[in-house]
């Protein structure tokens, strides 16, 4: 189990560097990072800078959430979002920002290029919950937290999935 840095720790504001060595040390770190993610309150994502390692590494796994499309456990090394489509507001929390959740606008669909733990490049298309998690984690690699992107309830114009009561039913 690795120790999670919490805001306002200045290390969370750093831009992480690319990974160049896909060696055994990296594999060991990935196992520790995943274990730490699974022990967390949400357990769906983690980025290396959250444990003080300023490298472009993140893991997302939203498979525990029913009825959504996802890629299972996704180890992302040197990830880059290459395409964005649509936007929607959703509520986020973060292991590095305890006792606070807030509304953030994210792209609905993204296209992503990332290396796996062996260094092989893959391209992914994703949407919704998984896309939100990935955007949140990549922000960590750029020294950004969701509290840097909050939008106010009062200006909530971006409703998604509206369950509207039908007239007369």
């Amino acid at each position, binding site marked *: 189990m690795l120790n999670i840095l919490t805001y306002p720790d200045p290390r969370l504001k750093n831009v992480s560097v690319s990974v160049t060595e896909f060696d055994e040390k990296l594999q060991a770190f990935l196992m520790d990072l995943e274990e730490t993610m699974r022990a967390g*309150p949400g357990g*769906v994502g983690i980025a290396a800078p959250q444990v003080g390692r300023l490298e472009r590494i993140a893991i997302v796994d939203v498979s525990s959430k029913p009825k959504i499309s996802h890629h299972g456990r996704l180890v992302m090394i040197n990830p880059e979002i290459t395409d964005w489509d649509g936007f929607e507001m959703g509520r986020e929390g973060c292991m590095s920002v305890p006792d606070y959740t807030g509304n953030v606008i994210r792209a609905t669909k993204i296209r992503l290029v990332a290396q796996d733990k062996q260094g092989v490049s893959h391209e992914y298309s994703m949407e919704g919950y998984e896309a939100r998690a990935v955007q949140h984690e990549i922000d960590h690699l750029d020294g950004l937290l969701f509290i840097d992107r909050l939008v106010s309830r009062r200006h909530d114009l971006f409703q998604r999935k*509206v369950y509207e009561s039908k007239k007369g039913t």
Partner: protein
Amino acid sequence: MHHWFMVTLVGQDQIGIVSKITTALYQGGCNLGEASMLRLGGNFTIMMMVDIPTGGKDALNHLLQPVAKELQLHLHLDAIEGLLHHHQVPNVRVSVHGADRAGMVAQVTSVLANAGLNILALESDVGGNANHPFYLMHIEGIATAGILALEEALRSLFASQPDLKVTLEPIETVVM
């Protein structure tokens, strides 16, 4: 030792209210907690948690009264339990709008309360013009009896109030 108070200040809006109030508190050694500061119908309103280490209510009153007087604000102090770091996370958002009329907020919130909604935040506004005002309300809360119960309740409300526009949206919080 913490001594928390809920400080309420209301008065005609003008520039500098927040800075003058919070400067007086800072200079008096107070700490601020959670707060809501908002202009409502030309009035500026402050509800703010303030922690004063020594002197209690009299000391806090002594700090704030001169500033409140200068700014012509009504000041009210209540000793409270200052429960920080215990945020509750809403799981549902309800938005309502319709032609303004008496009883709308009461009807909607009664229906929701009976179906188990615990309101964490409610913001409402009157828009339109004096002849044709409309009322708009955003609620975030916890559906203690489930979201289906709220949907059912709103459906029956709709049968009697077909011109109200009500949307109910689950809030999923992704914690990463």
